[in-house]
């Protein structure tokens, strides 16, 4: 049965179509893999084995009846940020203790409507605030990758660390994730998986716990580019329940794969060559450029002059929106309640006990920058800088650039409990330096594995596209994947 979990979504789909095995068999193989690996990896915070078997059985019945959806019988993991009806949904926070929503998020509803099977809920940084999955109330996720000759535990990145680790360790066929500043692409890069943050408005945010509403987007983490394309095709939709959901039909992303990149103009932004960047990241970038040039793409140097202001602007906009969004966790309607001497005391005690340190830090920053007398100096200025960041990209696209190639992260995965990073929040924030610009401008971005560093750890490249041109990203990322090959961790768990 262990062979079944090695199949990609596309392979499992095609095999089940031929009747080689059932969804029940595939689901059982994944549940066994989770049981074996989760004690070491901690990717799942809740395994829904009974529900998974029921869904798989229903899927097999549908297939027997001649109606199979695009993801018929494919077992998936779901990030704990997504509301799943009657199932643990806590954004990996203590403040949502015991929360089991009476509704289903639009994205997961789309997956189930296409026949997919839910294996359980995946670990993440609390409320998606973190770049290492260490802020989770359920403890850190351990990266299935280890440095050559080392037993040290590494982080899988964050905030979608559980999604990335589960995909890399073959504990699900694919996973849902979300990305506010790099939370899909950075963990994908750290685990040798593929992650795409689509254009803002492509996936409905309805039923996904809100962190920073103008930046949050749902997307998949998958084993290869084809699987990411298949998953996004099911996750994306036009949804009346999200006023920022864009009225555009969802294309057949998988059909874009295999297309030629001949004549495609790929921009290389000089501003992404940051001080202190390791030589292997620069080498990987040059390798990516060479692969695309060999495939017939035209490489052009571009300027994105406001790049260095994206992260500081993000750390105003995102906390400001978070402080507002997280005001709802007050111990009244759901989750944890800590009694107090009056209602204000109850609010304060509930939130003090319910939120972890990083979440509190961001709520405090957000409250401060929105408070009387500071709004113009911080929030308004940051939103103006955001306009400038977006304009940088628009000018590049107007000049004919089809996609932009950059490194995905400034380093490979780091150690769990890294003291240097823990002591300075800003150092941790710098992990998102290459990914955050994309959220600020609302553009699509994909991270694709491109090589290993000298320690044997995976590194990724990022492609940034024009709004709603995810097909260009899939096509180009596929060319990189064909050249680089795929990367799998050695099984130690």
């Amino acid at each position, binding site marked *: 049965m262990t062979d079944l979990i090695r199949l990609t979504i596309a392979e499992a789909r095609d095999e089940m179509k031929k009747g080689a095995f059932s969804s029940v068999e595939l689901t059982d193989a994944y549940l066994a893999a989770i049981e074996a690996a989760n004690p070491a990896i901690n990717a799942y915070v809740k395994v829904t084995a009974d529900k998974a078997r029921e869904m798989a059985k229903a899927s097999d019945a549908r297939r027997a009846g001649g109606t199979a959806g695009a993801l018929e019988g494919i077992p998936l993991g779901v990030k704990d940020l997504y509301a799943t009806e009657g199932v643990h949904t806590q954004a990996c926070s203590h403040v949502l203790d015991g929360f089991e929503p009476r509704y289903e998020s639009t994205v997961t509803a789309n997956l189930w409507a296409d026949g997919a099977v839910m294996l359980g809920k995946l670990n993440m940084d609390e409320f998606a605030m973190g770049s290492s999955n260490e802020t989770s109330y359920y403890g850190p996720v351990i990266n299935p990758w280890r440095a050559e000759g080392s037993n040290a535990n590494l982080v899988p990145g964050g905030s979608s660390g559980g999604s990335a680790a589960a995909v890399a360790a073959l504990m699900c066929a694919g996973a849902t994730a979300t990305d506010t500043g790099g939370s899909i692409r950075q963990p994908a890069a750290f685990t040798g998986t593929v992650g795409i943050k689509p254009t803002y408005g492509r996936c409905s945010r309805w039923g996904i716990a809100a962190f920073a509403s103008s930046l949050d987007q749902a997307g998949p983490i998958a084993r290869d580019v084809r699987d990411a394309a298949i998953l996004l095709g099911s996750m994306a939709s036009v949804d009346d329940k999200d006023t*920022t959901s864009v009225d555009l039909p969802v294309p057949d992303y998988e059909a874009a794969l295999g297309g030629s990149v001949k004549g495609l103009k790929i921009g290389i932004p000089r501003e992404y060559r940051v001080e202190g960047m390791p030589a292997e990241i620069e080498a990987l970038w040059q390798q990516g450029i060479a692969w695309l040039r060999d495939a017939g793409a035209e490489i052009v140097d571009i300027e994105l002059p406001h790049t260095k*202001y994206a992260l500081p602007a993000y750390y105003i906009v995102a906390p400001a929106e978070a402080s507002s969004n997280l005001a709802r966790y007050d111990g009244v309607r759901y989750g944890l309640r800590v009694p107090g001497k009056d209602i204000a005391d109850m609010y304060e005690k509930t939130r003090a006990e319910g939120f972890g340190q990083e979440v509190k830090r961001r709520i405090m920053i957000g409250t401060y920058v929105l408070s009387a007398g500071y709004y113009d100096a911080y929030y308004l200025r940051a939103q103006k800088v955001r306009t400038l960041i977006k304009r940088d990209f628009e000018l590049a696209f107007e000049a004919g650039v089809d996609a932009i190639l950059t490194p995905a992260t400034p380093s490979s995965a780091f150690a769990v409990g890294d003291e240097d990073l823990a002591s300075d929040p800003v150092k941790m924030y710098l992990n998102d330096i290459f990914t955050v610009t994309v959220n600020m401008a609302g553009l699509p971005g994909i991270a694709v594995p491109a090589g290993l560093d000298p320690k044997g750890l995976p590194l990724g490249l990022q492609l940034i596209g024009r709004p709603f041109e995810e097909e260009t990203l899939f096509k180009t990322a596929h060319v990189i994947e064909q050249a680089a090959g795929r990367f799998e961790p050695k099984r130690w768990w």
Partner: protein
Amino acid sequence: MSVDLATVKRVAHLARIAVTDEEAARMEGELNTILGFVEHLSEVNVDGVEPMTSVTPMAMKKRADVVTDGSKAEDIVANAPESTDNFFVVPKVVE
């Protein structure tokens, strides 16, 4: 700009998060590190620049002004820490 201990406590109260003196002191340092980092934005010339208010250039979708949902009081209070007769129960707020 930077925050002092009194400001940290005031902001914590605005955010309805109880903090001990020890926590407030630690937060003062952390918040000032972050505020020092975002200070870089003051270098940018933003004269005449419109603040971004919409990520994608589109008019916000509006739905018809009709009732499409409701009659789910039990669902709504289902996760409440305390409820009676489909009302949320909170500590007394009016003497």
